[in-house]
């Protein structure tokens, strides 16, 4: 045990003592935040573009640079989510739901601070989860198979109820619509193209970034354009955008420390299990925050927990995803696929030998992850004040700019101009939903989780038959699903009773 403690500390000291490594981390942070902040770019593109640059570097330097860059992508992604209602990356969509209303109420600074603090802490806890899970890594990762993915997806779908706001029926309809749209594409189970209307570009289904931009960014910009004024409905004089408010937001994370801890761990676990996808982590945690809150009706209107929960998950899942990538050589997420390739070209061979022969490298990467998250908070604090001012920019200037970002983001993400048609069609839908007060998050949940649910269900049935529900892990998850539903019903009942009194 003492040997391991030595390695923890030794690699940290080595990292802190190496000006080169620190400089690389500091250089990587703005790059990572940039790729997160510009909608549609994302961490994957960042890694792909940086691989030629790290090519000549020492393996350790290159790896630290890439890990640090990738760690802070979602920290940057929360900026446009909060300020403009445009998700910087897919997983940041959940931050939009409460972050943007906060900006509209003049609390942009606080929201940014909360997101920043949450990202930082989430990233640190995720990295620590990486460390703590080392001994039990294999059984944990290997216990999640198609059956568990299916049930986790169903669990996420039950959150639709929690996220439906006032009307469960509306939420379910919108959620089902999302599920239906998730079926669009070439089905790997039958080789049949479903609902593609003869369009090749729909073979991969509806691009999630496009859908999220369409449902959140476009309606908000239309509304802003129609309403006039600026994002912040509250005038500059009384709004909170100063450094003090950003720090206030960071303290909010501390105030809700129990939620922060829970969502960080959930996020790390979702990240550890390859196959669930990045969006699942943030939505699952957002849904969890709504469900576990005593006052769920505040969500969607600017509840700070709605910013904290997804943002912790976004960053902690990166720590989790690094695990299977390093130790099995099996990428934990699509971003990790590229990171893995980069490691190989740097001469690092991921696999069990890393634990045996290169534990110091692993620990250095863990610490790099931690440091990157912490330094990002500090760096961002420096510019937060000016970033927060953006919400006071006149709508007339902002709306066209944001539209350009949305269009660019959708095109970059899907690689095909025809997705712009989808963007506008879904944008009208989103506007309609907003106009008539229908909830929109259930749609995204249905879209994101529907695909995973269906594919996992087919695989599970093909492997075990319907008996897959009787496996121990499945039974645990089934009871969680049941508990989730019961909890919701009970809450509605007590709320209604309280209302009637």
């Amino acid at each position, binding site marked *: 045990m003492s040997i391991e403690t030595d390695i923890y500390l030794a690699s940290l000291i080595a990292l802190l003592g190496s000006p080169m490594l620190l400089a690389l981390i500091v250089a990587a942070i703005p790059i990572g935040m940039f790729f997160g902040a510009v909608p549609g770019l994302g961490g994957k593109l960042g890694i792909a573009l940086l691989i030629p640059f790290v090519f000549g570097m020492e393996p350790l330097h290159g790896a630290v640079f890439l890990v640090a860059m990738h760690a802070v992508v979602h920290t940057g992604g929360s900026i446009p989510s909060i300020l403009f209602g445009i998700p910087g990356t897919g997983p940041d969509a959940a931050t939009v739901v409460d972050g943007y209303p906060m900006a509209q109420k003049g609390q942009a600074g606080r929201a940014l601070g909360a997101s920043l603090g949450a990202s930082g802490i989430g990233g640190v806890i995720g990295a620590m989860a990486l460390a703590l899970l080392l001994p039990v890594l294999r059984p944990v990762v290997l216990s999640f*198979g198609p059956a568990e993915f299916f049930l986790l997806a169903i669990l996420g779908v039950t959150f639709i109820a929690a996220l439906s706001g006032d009307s469960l029926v509306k939420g379910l309809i919108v959620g089902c619509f999302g599920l239906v749209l998730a079926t669009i594409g070439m089905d*790997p189970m039958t080789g049949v193209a479903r609902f593609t209307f003869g369009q*090749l*570009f729909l*073979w991969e289904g509806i691009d999630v970034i496009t859908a999220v931009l369409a449902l959140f960014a476009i309606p908000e910009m239309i509304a802003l354009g129609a309403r006039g004024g600026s994002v912040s409905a509250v005038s500059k004089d009384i709004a909170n955008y100063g450094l003090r408010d950003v720090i206030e937001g960071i303290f909010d994370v501390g105030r809700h420390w129990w939620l922060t801890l829970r969502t960080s761990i959930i996020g790390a676990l979702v990240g550890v299990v390859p196959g669930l996808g990045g969006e699942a982590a943030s939505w699952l945690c957002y849904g969890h925050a709504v469900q576990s809150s005593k006052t769920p009706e505040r969500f969607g209107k600017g509840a700070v927990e709605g910013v904290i929960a997804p943002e912790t998950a976004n960053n902690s899942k990166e720590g989790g995803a690094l695990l299977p990538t390093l130790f*099995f050589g099996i990428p934990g997420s699509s971003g990790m696929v590229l990171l893995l390739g980069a490691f190989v070209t740097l001469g690092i061979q991921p*696999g*069990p030998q890393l634990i045996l022969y290169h534990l110091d490298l692993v620990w250095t990467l863990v610490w790099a992850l931690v440091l990157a998250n912490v330094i990002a908070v500090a760096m961002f604090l420096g510019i937060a004040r000016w970033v927060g001012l953006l919400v006071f920019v006149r709508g007339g200037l902002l709306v066209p700019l944001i539209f350009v970002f949305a269009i660019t983001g959708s095109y970059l993400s899907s690689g095909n101009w025809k997705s712009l048609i989808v963007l506008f069609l879904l944008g009208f839908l989103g506007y309609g939903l907003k106009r008539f007060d229908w909830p929109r998050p259930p749609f995204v949940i249905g879209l994101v989780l529907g695909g995973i649910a269906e594919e996992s269900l087919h695989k599970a049935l093909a492997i075990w038959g319907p008996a897959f529900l009787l496996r121990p892990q499945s039974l645990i998850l089934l009871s969680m699903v049941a508990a989730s539903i019961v909890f919701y019903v009970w809450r509605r009942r007590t709320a209604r009773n309280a209302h009637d009194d």
Partner: protein
Amino acid sequence: MKRLRRPLAAVLYVIFGAAVLLPSSKVSADDEFFDGKTITYIVATKPGGGYDTYGRLIAKYLEKHLPGARVIVKNVPGAGHIIGTNQLYHAKPDGLTIGSFNTGLIYAQLLKREGIRFDLRQMSWIGKAASEPRVLVVGIDSGIASIQDLQRAADPVRLASSGIGTSSHNETALLGHALGLNVKIIPGYGGTEGEMGIMRGEVAGTLGSYSSLRPFVDNGFGRMVLRVGGDSGAIGSVPTVRDLVSDNDGRAIAALIESQTELGRLTAGPPGIPSDRLALLRGAYEKALSDADLRQQANRLSIPIDPLFGEAVAANVGLALTQPPASVALLASVMNADAATTSVKADLLEVTAKGKRIRFHERGKTVVSKVSGSRTRVFIAGRADDRANLKKGMTCRIKYLAGGDNEARLIDCGD
């Protein structure tokens, strides 16, 4: 007469000189055709994957060996490489657009998959950059030690594939048929999910390219029990499918998959590129792939290089696509069939609703089978045909899914 000779000679000299000089000046003009021009290299995937890496490396060195030219990479992803290949096929054949795509599209073309608007035989082939031997890997704890275990298995062994219609699925089904393996293919395991599935024990193995499965094997998680292609040196003592097949069907399948493994990372242009420009491109490609710097870069990226150029590639592609109708029918039936299909040779007793329903005898009972417009493969006299042309009295080999409306998978009629 003598008086005419000098002017005549002069005229002849002029004509002769022009005849000699003019063509050569034309040739040198074409040598410089690419000078100052921009070539677009289409990669049919999103940035960041294997095809993108090869594409960018090749593009860089093509530029080096085509003086004055610029080569830019354009990513055109979607529909499993089909969108990019369609675009490449229909680009202007002036030599300024070339690109790369998945060799597995050969299967797609053989099976006439929807969405395909190209004919690989017509492409202007420039070369290929690598060989991609396939290996069948089983989990180290799966209890399977050799390919014979799969042949002798009492219960179907589960193997993972990316999805129906993908190369990995097609090849797994073909090999299963060729070697008589008792396997059940579970689709939906894209990317590295197959490896995770093996580690979790829900599938016993998967078929994939050696380069992508090698880390898994080297890390001790799996063992190779079969290979297709690849020289023995690199993959040691793994048995190859050629050694194990015994009949014509098996040999045809082995040859088809082997041709796939040979033709990795293809580069081609649209049909009809003028031959001189194509020659320039081929020449530059050959120089690029023989360039020591490129080899060194490829080494560092860990991407193998095993090139073949121009005509040889065109010939191989042509061969792979020229399968006798019987083989195509075999491929179709193998790739579309699953364990539940029943196979029978019978006369069509009745054909109704313009071919949507057929009736035939099977082992003493009458079966009414639904013929799908999209899912049933119909062959008449060896050629793919429409269900409306099925006639009562034809003698056909019918493969159908017993149960429900007995949907037919394959109807192959000889008359």
